[in-house]
């Protein structure tokens, strides 16, 4: 048998969006290529937030102050 392809869980690239289904929950964690993260319960709202980059996107270290990281989709910009 042939070697397995390289691990595909993280793909390189400058503009890669990642969405993780948070284990043991019904939540989705969106990770923007700018490192901003946010949790959602609705994939439609999730993509609206991811694709609104850079609007509403703040780096993880500052999101703890704003409460953006780890919060559900309430207040998400849906322009």
């Amino acid at each position: 048998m042939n070697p397995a392809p390289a691990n595909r869980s993280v793909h390189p690239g400058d503009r890669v969006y990642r969405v993780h289904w948070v284990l043991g929950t019904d939540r989705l964690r969106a990770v923007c290529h700018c490192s901003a993260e946010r949790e959602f319960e609705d994939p439609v709202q999730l993509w609206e937030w991811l694709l609104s980059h850079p609007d509403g996107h703040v780096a993880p270290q500052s999101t703890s102050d704003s409460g953006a990281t780890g919060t559900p989709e309430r207040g998400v910009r849906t322009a």
Partner: protein
Amino acid sequence: MTGFPRDQWYVAAYSSEIGPELFSRTICAEPILFWRTRSGQVTAMSDRCVHRRFPLSQAPSRLVDDQVICGYHGFTYGADGGCTAVPGQTRIPRTARLRRYPLVEQDSLVWVFIGDPARADAARIPRAPYLDSPDYTTVAGMEPLAARFSLLVDNLLDLSHETYLHGGYIGTPEVAATPITTEVDDEAGVVHVSRHMADAECPPFYAKSTGLHGRISRWQDIEYTPPCLYKLHSRIAPVGSVPNADGSDPDAFHVEVVYAITPETEHSTHDFWAVARDFALDDQDVSAFLAENNRTVVLQDVAALNVLERVIAGEPEGYQELSINIDTGGLAARRLLRRQLDASRTPGVAS
């Protein structure tokens, strides 16, 4: 979503389908005539005579010495699409030329470019090298689908449907129950959806082909390059087995499931499917089993999507949908397709 992106490459046929006879297939609502010339090259040009639009693939049209002769009035065209003879006169009208399509034959697939030929960059064609690799054995087919191609994209990007639509073949309870990871490479234009089941029931499709029974480790890694090429990297292994650090993976069975999703019209699709495996390479029974069972699975999708097309086509635009976590990858694919569709409607822009 109806319509299809232009200025894109689409799979028109398997290489094995095109020989030294006339062959016709409609791609993105454009009837295209193919044949393999005596030098081995595949040609692609309009399947309509410029005179009165008679199909050049239709008898009594015929191919003689790499020239196609229209069966209606005898207009004759060479492999480059140029007209070489017209009936009853020596002057050949300047506009008597068939439209030619950029074409690339690779990985056992025949790709054509639909759109402005000046934008045809062959380097953008995604690869599926296992389809003609000596390290793999491949079974393949194509089923006509009476549904818009975006419905097949939705279907293939969310494999949780295997549990319900394909139970007894490739579906087990774990598929729908296992969380997915979705990644979108926006610059490369690729959607990845991964579902790694560490301890899952082995479905009959894999039990009979690999010899593994009971519980297995089953990985599904989707790689979709819109609009046409979809690849499912499937890894089947004993529970607890993972690839070695150097990438070798001697305990696992690898199956590369490839789909080419090619619009025929706005409401019909060519559903090309192929299954390439890196084990039991010379076992004809395994080949026959995988071919029969995968075709059965594809036909289960075809039956469901044909119904869905009729339902959706009968509803007003803007019907309400509900999307949940399993749809994350499908929504990403729709976004990339929408971007390609918008670009192909804007002169001077292609993505």
